[in-house]
């Protein structure tokens, strides 16, 4: 069999390619199975789960901005137990890695959800300490040193079976500090970045476009910020980094690899066209073949300064 140049390994787990769909932009995976062959994806990070069902923020929840969008969904989800009963058995039929993104309103809740997930048939956990759209939990944990340390180490202590990815918030002055704290607290990998806190106002009514007033900015507009943060994180920690933010084509993926990523997640681009992740996988393959690059992982952190 021909070698698979796209294969990557994160915390000992092999991914057939480095393309993972980002949490919150791919539902529970199943929504997209009507439109694309989700078995072709390297992995899927499912919508952020909490202990109990959450109904999210009031409408309007989305508004488009230049080359991006603002959302204030509010981490709406069906709760961890319903996910395990209703969605996971269907998702398991597909040949792709399953990462479960999760969050809590308190440290105890984070730990409880993590413990439940640690014992089910999924590949990795991704702790979200960076959602800007909820009052409790989320970003409050990811922008305070002590809270970050506490939540990551508490969760890590309570899980035995799965690697833990910590998803960083870009809404901090120095991401290096937070990346280091996560590594020291036991994180097995880092994903960066979540959405940037933003706002948009209707100049006719003078009211904010979103019911929540502020929202999370995503899409190509945030890519330069994300690339910078992956680069800085790569220089700071030894654990693998999953790059996220504004990726829409294979060139963006290569850029994230050069900056220090071992894999990437595709978010808003899934809305732009559900076929984009598949197209990226094909384009990457062609790129590596044309450039005679044996494995994509050789590009990780290959940036040349000077």
């Amino acid at each position, binding site marked *: 069999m021909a070698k698979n140049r796209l294969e990557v390994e994160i915390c000992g787990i092999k991914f057939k390619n480095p393309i993972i769909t980002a949490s919150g932009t791919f539902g529970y995976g199943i*929504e997209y199975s009507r439109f694309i062959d989700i078995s072709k994806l390297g992995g899927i990070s499912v919508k952020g789960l909490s202990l109990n069902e959450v109904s999210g923020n009031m409408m309007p929840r989305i508004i488009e901005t230049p080359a991006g969008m603002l959302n204030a969904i509010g981490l709406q989800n069906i709760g961890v137990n319903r996910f395990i009963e209703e969605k996971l058995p269907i998702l398991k039929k597909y040949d792709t890695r399953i990462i479960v993104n999760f969050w809590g309103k308190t440290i105890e809740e984070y730990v409880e959800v993590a413990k439940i997930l640690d014992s089910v048939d999924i590949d990795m956990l991704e702790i979200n300490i960076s959602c800007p759209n909820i009052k409790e939990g989320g970003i409050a944990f990811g922008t305070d040193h002590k809270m970050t340390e506490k939540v990551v180490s508490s969760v890590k202590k309570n899980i035995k079976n799965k690697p833990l990815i910590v998803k960083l918030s870009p809404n901090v002055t120095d991401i290096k500090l937070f990346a280091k704290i996560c590594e020291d607290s036991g994180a097995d990998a880092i994903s960066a970045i979540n959405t940037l806190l933003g706002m948009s106002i209707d100049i006719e009514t003078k009211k904010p476009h979103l019911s929540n007033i502020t929202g999370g900015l995503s899409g190509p507009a945030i890519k330069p910020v994300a690339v910078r943060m992956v680069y800085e994180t790569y220089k700071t920690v030894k654990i693998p980094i999953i790059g996220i933010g504004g990726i829409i084509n294979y060139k963006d993926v290569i850029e994230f690899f050069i900056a220090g990523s071992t894999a990437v997640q595709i978010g808003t681009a899934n809305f732009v066209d*559900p076929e984009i992740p598949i197209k990226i996988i094909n384009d990457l393959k062609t790129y590596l073949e044309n450039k005679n690059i044996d494995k994509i992982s050789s590009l990780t952190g290959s940036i040349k300064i000077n």
Partner: protein
Amino acid sequence: MTGKIVFNKKLSDKYYYMKIESPEFVKNAKPGQFFMLKTQSFDYLVDPLLRRPFGVCDIEEDCFTILYTLVGKGTYLLSNLQTSTEISFSNPLGNGFSIVKNKNVALVGGGVGIAPLLYLSKALKDNNNSITLYYGGKSIGDIHLLEYFENTCDYIKISTEDGSLGEKALITDIITNFDYDIVYTCGPKPMMKNVVSVFQDKVENIEVSLDERMACGLGACLGCIIYVKEGDNIVQKRCCVEGPVFDGNKVVWEL
């Protein structure tokens, strides 16, 4: 998928009518369904980023049509696309209207909300229904495609707010007959809300086609929530998957 633009006609200062050839799309499209359309033909142009939702206006052999009105950047770019340009769009999405047989039906459309009622009227005519169309707009410039509706509808009643065509009234004010088995409506929210209150208690089935801002159109982003009554509860539905057509008697218009 992609298709070729057969024409992109300007109907008035704000309205355009576009025809796209795509046998693949046409195969499965039902009346009341919508699709997500990339409003320009460049692959990597990222502004506007998201696709835009539009209703299936009509199906003619291998082609489908869109009646659209200029709103902002996306529809402006769309209006500039030339014949033969290749354009990309999703499969037909959403639930669509229910198609009844041998009934007396009313269609109530306002402004560009008339769009999905055209294909619906064809399907209803094929099923031997008697169809009355109520069509309202602000002014004569908002009333389009009448020549198509004349082939499918038994009665057509028109009103404009300024009286430039038909009666000078809101469309809901000129409805005097309530003897219908089912009412279908699509248009601005205040109009649909009025339609429901006018027909409530008189007609059991009122199907409203709602529009809500959409990012994905596929049920994944949870950005397009509609609230409906289910027994004693108010529950969330996704406009793009559980809709865009809802039971008018159950919609919660204001929360």
